[in-house]
Each structure stands twice: as structure tokens, then as C-alpha cells.
């Protein structure tokens, strides 16, 4: 089974809120010193799912990422985890790409890769939490798409069964291949890169594709514009319950809630 996994490099989601800063003029995040960007968490789950399917059925896992030079680190990590190949879509013209342009560029890259049975993406990225680019890729490629998916069962050359999370439950869907699935974190636990993989990643040649390589029309404006990015300042207004002992504080809390008619 030939699988393509889309990965995105994002600011570390574990940056504590107190250290989170943005540059309002350029509408970008200012990463705190010493905190490197990481592979989007859901994408790691998608890659893990792809690696397991490949190990079960044979075939090849190729990762593709759109982003600036630093996105190469996310691709290297994917190879270290066990991906067979990687492609880096990198073009200054695409650096500030909106979701619609990103979807078009990644779809063009996947098309250029040739034969593919399954595209796996994270259900959303932890920076914009849009959860839409993968569905755009599927639309551009004319693939059926299911998202968010918590389980992949019964894979064959023709179909997979995907468990799609819906409100208050899930649907089991048999999906004809080729298809795209948006992977959620319930699916698996991504592996840590083994030493052998880390060495392979060091040696890996990662081709860079530009907008021209993908025959994307240059200069097409995106459809979604970021007009403003800011951090909401929040002053704590908590009343800390003080008491002689933790037990007394607990009882006092109950009294406070009763006074406020909340319990």
C-alpha cells in the first residue's frame, strides 16, 4: 500500500500561555528562545498509522510538507520514525499561503508523486486548528475523504474501514481507495525515532519542489486573509480559599458555592 502522509511544522504547543507572544505587525508568533518548532501532533499519529499499515501490507510511506527551510526538520523526524521518502514543498511565494493555496499546492505535490492508495493527514494542526486543508487536498485530488478518524480496520488493496468520530459516537465506514483520512489522536501512540532511523534521517536526501515545479500559477491571492493576531491579556480574579487545613478549605469552598446558590 503506497501511502502519502502530510506533515506540518508548528510552534511547540507546549509553550506555556505565559510565554506566548505574537508580533502584531507581521501577524506571526514570536517563538520563545530555545523552543524549537515541532511536527504537528496529529500528523505524528497519521504517520504512525501509515507506518503500521506499510509494515502489515508492504508498500511505501512518503511524507510531504509545505513550509519554509525549517520545515525540513519535521520531514527528517518523519524519516527517523520510519518513512521511506520525503518531499519538501518550499517556495517564498508560498510562505504566507492561506489554507486554500496550501491545499492546492499539497494536492499538486501528491499528484506529482504518482501512484498513491491512501493519503493520511492529521485531523487539524495545532497552530490554526482549522482542520480543513486535508479536506481541500481531497477535493482537489477528487478523493473520498473521512475525518476525524479514530481507527482504521480491515485494510485491503481496494478498501479500508474507517471509524469516524461524530457527535456522541462514531460511524464505521467502508471507504474505497484511493482515499484520504484525517487521523485523530485516539488512533495510536506515535513511536520515538529509533537510533537507526535517526542515522537514516541524517543521510536522507530530501528533494525541494517549488511552485514552478508543481505548475502552480504564481501570484494567485489566497481566499482567507489574516487581518489581526493578538494575545488577550487576562487578569486573574480568583478568590483563593484560605483555611487552617486543606480539609477546612474544602468545606469552606462548599459553603461559598452554596452562598452563591450554585449548589
Amino acid at each position: 500500500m503506497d501511502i502519502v502522509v502530510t506533515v506540518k511544522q508548528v510552534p511547540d504547543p507546549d509553550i506555556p500561555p505565559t510565554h506566548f507572544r505574537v508580533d502584531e505587525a507581521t501577524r506571526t508568533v514570536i517563538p520563545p528562545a530555545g523552543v524549537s518548532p515541532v511536527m504537528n501532533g496529529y500528523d505524528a499519529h497519521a504517520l504512525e498509522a501509515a507506518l503500521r499499515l506499510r509494515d502489515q501490507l508492504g508498500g511505501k510511506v512518503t511524507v510531504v510538507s509545505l513550509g519554509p527551510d525549517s520545515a525540513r526538520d519535521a520531514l527528517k523526524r518523519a524519516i527517523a520514525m520510519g518513512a521511506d521518502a520525503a518531499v519538501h514543498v518550499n517556495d517564498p511565494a508560498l510562505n504566507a499561503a492561506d489554507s486554500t493555496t496550501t491545499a492546492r499546492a499539497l494536492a499538486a505535490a501528491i499528484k506529482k508523486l504518482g501512484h498513491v492508495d491512501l493519503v493520511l493527514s492529521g485531523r487539524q494542526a495545532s497552530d490554526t486548528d482549522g482542520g480543513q486543508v486535508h479536506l481541500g487536498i481531497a477535493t482537489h485530488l477528487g478523493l473520498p475523504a473521512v475525518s476525524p478518524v479514530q481507527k482504521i480496520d480491515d485494510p485491503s488493496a481496494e478498501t479500508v474501514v474507517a471509524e469516524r468520530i461524530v457527535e456522541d459516537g462514531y460511524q464505521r465506514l467502508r471507504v474505497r481507495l484511493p482515499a484520504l483520512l484525517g487521523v485523530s489522536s485516539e488512533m495510536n501512540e506515535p513511536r520515538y525515532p529509533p537510533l537507526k532511523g535517526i542515522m537514516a534521517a541524517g543521510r536522507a536526501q530530501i528533494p525541494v519542489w517549488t511552485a514552478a515545479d508543481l505548475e502552480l500559477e504564481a501570484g494567485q491571492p489566497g481566499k482567507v486573509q489574516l487581518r489581526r493576531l493578538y494575545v488577550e491579556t487576562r487578569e486573574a480574579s480568583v478568590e483563593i480559599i484560605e483555611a487552617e487545613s486543606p480539609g477546612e478549605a474544602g468545606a469552606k469552598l462548599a459553603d461559598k458555592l452554596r452562598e452563591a446558590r450554585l449548589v
Partner: protein
Amino acid sequence: MPGVLVIADASGEQLAATTAELVGEGARLAQQLGGKPVTVLLAGKNVQGLASGLGQLGVEKVLVADFDGSAAPSPQWSIAAAEQAARSVQPEVILLTHAGGSRDLGATLAYRLDTGIVTDATALRVDGGELIITKPVFGGSAIAEFAISSSPSVVTLRPRAFETGEEPTPHGDPQIESLAVPAFDAAIEVLEEVREQATGGPRLKDAKVIISGGRGLGGPENWHFVDELAQILGAAVGATRAVTDAGWVSPSLQVGLTGATVAPDLYITIGISGAVQHIAGISGARNVVAINRDADANIFKYARWGVVGDWKLIVPAFTQRLKELRG
């Protein structure tokens, strides 16, 4: 006369509670856009009878796409229905709820219509004739404002972030038109649909009181402290993603960005540090209580009352006192 198209979540053969929020916000937007009409699409299985309920919300026109298959409609069918409605109504704005199947439906619909989408919006405003869409990004650490330059603007609204219609003008029975869903190449077959029944107690998203536990509880063997409190207060039980990912409790209890968005009157947290991913789900909670040993934990910034200390000593006394108070 283009206006606003609301795509209601009618899965599960009933109108989702969020429909009133979509209609309320849709009506406000339509007003700001110059008194344009609001049309609602009801697509799903056995939805015919739900249209009159929309009349009570003040909706004038409803498109009904009835799914007559034996199983539940597939995502492809829902997309085909939504696309057909959008092409026939030609709205300026399309609104969906950011929950369940509507999230990915909205995104796919936007790409089919070759237009832009912003998901999980928490506020909308019309500014100089342009729709400005506010949404939290970076897990809630920052706020972004977007504009969509193509038409229609597709937006999914965060559940419980918007008011329902104020006083719907009763229009009596809405005008109902049936919508034929065009044929498509079916690549997805619905094998089964499993709706998890809440095990007693109120449902998370409708609950007035919620007791939530985090990793600070130490392990699943301590979860009964949460359950007992919930039982005494008639509350729903919630959990952080760390806890559901660790398998202590069912994933359906997850509150946060990738779980339920809740808006209770009282939200009591035990051993929850307040990761942004969790905070994103409780922005609608009116009173947050934090019990945590770390005085610097982020959760205290969002709390009205806090107790700093070991929950193992605090919670049993809290529970006991509540028992007494409630007789």
C-alpha cells in the same frame, strides 16, 4: 436575493441544540447585510418533521433533503446535499456548527464551491460591508481575525459561543421546499453508526454543573472521587485530554479543543493545570472552581474560586460538606 444559508445538524434524526445558535447568528448577520433572508438546510434521515420546529425559531424558509436509505447518510451524501443547497440559494454566507460531522462538511463544501472557510469561530461582525471572523488560534493562546475575499464565506461556529435568537419573530409555518440531492459516485459505505448513550446523569454539553478531573488525580483508581461528587450534585463528569488519552475514562468525556465544548453554570476542576487545549473547551463556563496543588497553575487564571493544596485532603471534606448542605 442572496442571504445567509444555515446548514443545520440534523444527524441523529433530531435538530441539534446548536441549530438555534446558528439561526440566531444567521438572522443577526442577515440584518447587518441589509435585511437579507435566512434559509435553513435540513438534510438527513427522517428530517421532514423537524421543519416546523424551525418555524418557532423564526425561520422563513427551509430546504429539506430527506435521506431515504436504510443506513445513515454517508459524508458524501451530506456534502452533495449541502453543495446543491448552496448552488440553489447562492448565499453570501454559509453557517454550520463546529461539531460532529458539520466540521468536515463545512470544509469540504467550501473547497467544492472554490471559496474560503474559517472554522471554529467565536464571534462574527460586519465591518465596512466585510465579514470579520474571530477565532482562537494556537490552542487558545492567541486570537485571530480573518476575512474571506471569495464568496460565499463559509464559517463554522463554536458551539455555545453564540447567543440564540432573542425573540424570534413567529412566522408560523416556514415555507418548505424539498431539495433533490444529485447522484454521486458512492465511494463510502456506512456499515454502522454507534451513538453512545450517556451512562445516567446529564450530558456534558447540556450540563449546568460539571466535575472535571485531570492528570493531577494520579490514576484511574482515584476517579471515583470525581464520580461521587458528580452524583451528589447531579452533575456531568468531564476529563482532560491527558486523562482520556491515558485511557482512565471514555474519550467521550473529554472537554477541550478536540473534545466537548461546554457552558455550565459551575465547572469544578480537580487536578487540572489548565492547558490551553482544555481551556478552549470551557470558555463558556460561568463559574470555574480550581482545586490544584500548584498555585501557579494556569487554571487559577480562569477560576472564580480556588483551593491550593492536595486534592486528596480537600475533596473528601468538600464532598462531605456538600452532602450535609444538600441534606
